[in-house]
């Protein structure tokens, strides 16, 4: 009798445990790159929803009611911080979410946005949110994500720690690959024009200089002065390559390349991942893809 009761209790306990294991922790990441990091740390224990889809622009995102519902259901909300998601606060308030908000860049030293004005004035002291363009920063992201997931789901501690450790190793491999690739490019040729200055952290970590024809955010439209300045610069400094970016106006870049004879590089990804069948379906794939594109354009 006692044995049967025990068995029944054990069975009940087991079924609860397995039901719990099947019920994934619902979390939200604000944009695709962050979503990929959370997926890698969370593994099968979390269900990650991403607000800004691949190829979308997190600077000017317009949330839909479905996004508010996603947020309301989430236990943890991962955001990049450093001013990237200006729209998030209101969305969280409006959704009535009780989820924990985690700033993934906590502990990252933010850079100031480089804003070189032609006349040397009007320096805006804005912080650059694109911290993920340095792998070293993403290691901090991963640690923050791991700690937040453990806090929200202590039972999964072991899994999260294991996933994070494994992912950190892969990040280190990517980081050394990038550094090796840059080392092979002659120092005088490490200059690139791209339509979005999201590569500030990449530049300072890996020593390639990026010059952008537009301001800090994709919200500002390029003026004739900006474009003229860029063209003069390409001509004066003999900058070898111009890169299109997946979310800014490619027609403008083509015009600049045509007028200067600089080489148009392939598409690189800075603010968002590509779709699943694109070349930058994950963060690691994105970084590998980008450095290969840069190296190819600067090589000859």
């Amino acid at each position, binding site marked *: 009798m006692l044995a049967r009761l025990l068995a029944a209790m054990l069975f009940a306990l087991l079924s609860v445990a397995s039901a719990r294991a099947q019920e994934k922790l619902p979390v939200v990441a604000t944009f695709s790159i962050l979503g990929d990091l959370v997926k890698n740390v969370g593994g099968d224990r979390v269900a990650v929803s991403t607000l800004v*889809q*691949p*190829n*979308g*622009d997190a600077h*000017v*995102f*317009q949330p839909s009611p479905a996004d508010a519902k996603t947020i309301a259901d989430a236990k943890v909300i991962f955001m990049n911080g450093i001013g990237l998601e200006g729209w998030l606060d209101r969305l969280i308030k409006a959704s009535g979410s009780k989820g924990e908000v985690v700033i993934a860049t906590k502990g990252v030293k933010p850079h100031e946005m480089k804003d070189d004005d*032609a006349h040397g004035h009007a320096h805006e002291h804005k912080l650059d949110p694109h911290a993920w363009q340095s792998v070293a920063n993403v290691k901090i992201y991963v640690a923050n994500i791991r700690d937040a997931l453990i806090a929200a789901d202590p039972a999964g501690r072991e899994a999260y720690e294991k996933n994070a450790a494994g992912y950190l190793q892969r990040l280190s491999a990517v980081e050394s690959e990038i550094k090796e690739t840059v080392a092979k490019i002659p120092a005088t040729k490490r200059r690139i024009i791209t339509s979005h200055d999201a590569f500030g952290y990449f530049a300072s970590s890996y020593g390639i200089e990026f010059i952008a024809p537009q301001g800090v955010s*994709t919200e*500002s*439209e*390029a*003026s*004739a*002065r*900006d*474009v*003229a300045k860029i*063209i003069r610069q390409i001509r004066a400094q003999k900058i070898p390559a111009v890169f299109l970016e997946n*979310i*800014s*106006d*490619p*027609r*403008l870049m*083509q*015009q*600049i390349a*045509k*007028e200067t004879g600089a080489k148009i590089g392939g598409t690189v990804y800075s603010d968002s991942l590509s779709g699943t069948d694109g070349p930058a379906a994950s963060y690691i794939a994105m970084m590998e893809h980008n450095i290969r594109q840069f190296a190819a354009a600067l090589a000859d």
Partner: protein
Amino acid sequence: MNPYDFLIAPFIEFEFMRRALVGSFALALGGAPVGVFLMLRRMSLTGDAMAHAILPGAAVGFLFAGLNLFAMTTGGIVAGVTVAVGAGLIARSTGLKEDASLAAFYLVSLALGVLIVSIKGSNIDLLHVLFGTVLALDDATLILIALIATVSLVALAIIWRPLVLECVDPNYLRSVSRSGAPTHLVFLALMVLNLVGGFHALGTLLAVGIMMLPAAAARFWARELTAMIALAIVMAVFSGYAGLLLSYHTGAAAGPAIILVAGIVYVGSVLLGPIGGLKRYFVRVRHLEA
């Protein structure tokens, strides 16, 4: 800075400035006359409505082919013509007036357009469609805009007489000729064409500006139609040139700068224009003193 450096050198040094200039001249040539007729027919706001109506067509083109000139142009023309004809038909066959049915059509179109662009997931692209890139006109776009200007001028020359008559006295035209309806349709088509050409350079929202502002300004300087059209073209050309210089020297966004210059020309005309301008209220009229 000497005048040459300020006024001419930017266009000598940079090809993109020359392209932008040629593009805005072509837009001025085609758009300004159409704008004058729109104004005389009290259809000034129709241009604005149609500009919004073009959006879903351009968006569908964009959805299938990205920032592809041909796809977006075709889509824009189809959508524009559909809305123009649809609004006209409803106005003629129901009790709803044409302005109300046009308003209904363009609002639906606008919402549809924004929806379609956002399906693709990237809202920055929507801004490119709405605001255009006058600084990035490639050969194909320039040829398209120039072609539209040519077609507009030739077509206007052909339908000139019935069009003028219809502006002045549509009932008389109806009594002597049956060319009223076809003239109206050709004219609507020209308006759509010019808006589609304009949106590649200035975006759907501002394309109307280069059409209507010079027309409204010219009204204060000329009584006679030919002079009014010539003046409107000159003012539109000047707006393009001065707007690009403004953008070049101050760093203002190029498209809005062009339209703002046109706006300044308009305000100046309202104040100083000899025909019905405000000048008569604040300039003392001399012969009363004698």
